[in-house]
């Protein structure tokens, strides 16, 4: 489950077996993560899952009960926050209200007793980098949310830390601005070329910007991997349902055969809710009789009007509720045995799709065995 950094640049931040409790509440439970140099790494999870606590431990504001954190191989846990080679962008920005944007950004440089020309040069550079030109003499109260965010990023970057910590930096902004700033954040990451550790509860943000993601729930890391791995092959029920939208059904493994063409195991599972068996591929042989969860993403399901057999894993039913959202539609299909299944359909018409699907239409849905996957319940040790 633990992700092993294998890039050419090596590991920048190593988090080993970190445990932290607040009273009876276990915020972090034996968390281990390796973060590569210069990558954009996201800690993703619902609120209260421990991701912010981990970030605050890295920054030095909290002390873990056990475990260790190293930067470039050196433990940093004994260092106070001011001595650590990382800077943080706070959720509420934490700009100093009595200082202008420029003075906020210059603050850490002045502490380091840098000479005035050098400070001016550096501050100008970072003001330009975050596109704040023209606003540098305003106080935080005179800046918009997005501008404050930029000041906070510039202030954290100006000391050229080896790691930048970002604690849900976009959560206070509106959706449109969030999208724009996300792109800019990615550009800034490319320009400064340091490790970014980004905490978010927004899975689409994490998927679109990260090199790697660690998915948290209830103080544990459930899965670490690239956005593609996390989305396409989630390891547990929680990851599958938290990242993106999906259909999940409990199932029992009935049969398992190796398919030489696919070079994968073809597994047949019985799903009571569908009243039928379904075939699904997996990299490993799975023992017969195991209880797992079968999951299939809505966009991987094909939907056509009328009663048509579309090959493997095919079911028919009625459209119970179509939800139109511009570029696509989401259908809640009530299958013949009364189970609901979510299906996404892009608004691109293919020749053999038949007529437009509407409310109460009779439809057939199907999916390929390679698109479904089996996941385990959260805490079972073995898959």
């Amino acid at each position, binding site marked *: 489950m633990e992700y092993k950094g294998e890039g050419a640049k090596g590991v920048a931040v190593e988090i080993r077996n970190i445990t932290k409790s607040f009273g009876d509440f276990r915020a972090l439970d034996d968390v281990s993560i390796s973060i590569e140099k210069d990558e954009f790494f996201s800690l993703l999870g619902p609120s209260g899952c421990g991701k912010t606590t981990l970030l605050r431990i890295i*920054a*030095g*504001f909290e002390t873990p009960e056990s475990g260790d954190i190293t930067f470039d191989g050196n433990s940093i846990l004994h260092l*106070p*926050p*001011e001595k650590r080679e990382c*800077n*943080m962008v*706070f959720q*509420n920005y*934490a*700009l*100093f*209200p*009595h*200082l202008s944007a420029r*003075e906020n950004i210059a*603050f*850490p440089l*002045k*502490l*380091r007793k840098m000479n005035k020309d050098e400070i001016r040069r550096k501050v100008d550079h970072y003001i330009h980098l975050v596109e704040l030109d023209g606003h540098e003499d305003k106080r935080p109260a005179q800046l918009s949310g997005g501008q404050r965010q930029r000041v906070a990023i510039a*202030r*954290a970057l100006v*000391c050229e830390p080896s790691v930048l910590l970002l604690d849900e930096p976009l959560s206070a902004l509106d959706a449109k601005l969030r999208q724009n700033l996300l792109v800019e954040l990615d550009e800034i990451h490319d320009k400064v070329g340091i490790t970014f550790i980004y905490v978010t509860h927004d899975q689409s943000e994490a998927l679109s910007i990260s090199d790697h993601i660690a998915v948290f729930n209830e103080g544990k890391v459930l899965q670490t991997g690239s956005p593609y791995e996390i989305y396409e092959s989630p390891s547990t029920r929680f990851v599958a349902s938290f990242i993106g939208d999906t259909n999940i059904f409990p199932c029992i493994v009935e049969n398992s055969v190796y398919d030489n063409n696919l070079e994968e195991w073809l597994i047949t599972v019985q799903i009571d809710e569908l009243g039928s068996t379904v075939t699904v591929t997996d990299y490993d042989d799975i023992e017969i009789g195991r209880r797992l969860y079968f999951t299939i993403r809505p966009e991987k399901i094909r939907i056509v009007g009328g009663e048509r057999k579309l090959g493997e894993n095919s079911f028919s039913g009625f459209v119970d509720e179509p939800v139109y959202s511009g570029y696509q539609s989401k259908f809640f299909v009530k299958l013949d045995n009364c189970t609901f299944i979510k299906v996404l359909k892009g608004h691109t018409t293919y020749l053999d799709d038949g007529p437009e699907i509407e409310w109460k239409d009779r439809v057939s849905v199907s999916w390929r065995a390679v698109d479904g996957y089996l996941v385990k319940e959260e805490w079972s040790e073995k898959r």
Partner: protein
Amino acid sequence: MKRDKKRINVRAYLYSLPMGIWVTLFFAIPIAIILIYSFLEKGLYGGVEWRASLAAYKAILNPNFLIVIWRTVYISVIATAICLLLSFPASYAMARSRHQTLFLFLIIIPFWTNSLIRVYAWINLLSTEGLINNVLIKLGIISEPIPMIYNLFSVILVLVYMYLPFAILPLFTAIDRFDFSLLDAARDLGCGRLRAIILVMFPAIRSGFFNALIFTLIPIFGAYTVPLLVGGMGSTMVGNIIVDQVQKTRNWPLASAFSVILTLISMIGVMAMLGSGKKKEEMNEKLL
């Protein structure tokens, strides 16, 4: 637009009228009377003769009076400084505590008892046969009672006791409003713990600090009952002289002149401190 603005102005005047009347009746007019009286001749049996004179101000230049003015200044400065020094950690702890309401309640409780009674309670504690001396003698720690009352020590102690809540409350309000994540940010950017407080917290709670200063310094400067009840010959303050001049010596112009001096000194003091506070902030920004 223009008409709107005008209407708002008229309304603003109307709303501030009660306050204006109040201030004029009970503050501006009495001060004016005192100011005028201080430049008149004293009447034979109290009151004033309506003849202009500088006699009262000349009388103040008497070294005995100057000593009292000087003493009033330094007692006030010391007592205020102690109040502020004690109130900062206390307010900080209160703002960070989960039991804020309890602490606020504890601070407000003493106000339920008349202040004179509380001063008398201090007399019982501090006097030569008082509780503290008795206990210490019984315990064998001292053989002779410590002179703790009717001196500068007792005056400053009781003044600090009386006015400490007035320093804690405004400072607590300011610290409670302070965004503590700013301290985290300052430390993250390279400040030590203490430096973060000085560079980031102090500027943010400045107004609370000056409120605390004004709420303690001005009443202490005009203190009358405390030096009268727990003070001795060497700790008379201007407030006591004014009362003596009105009631015993019946020199109203002199009493008025002292009042004018008292008001002037406290006004100048507060103005100077507010001014230096502003300068200090500018300096901080430059130094930083």
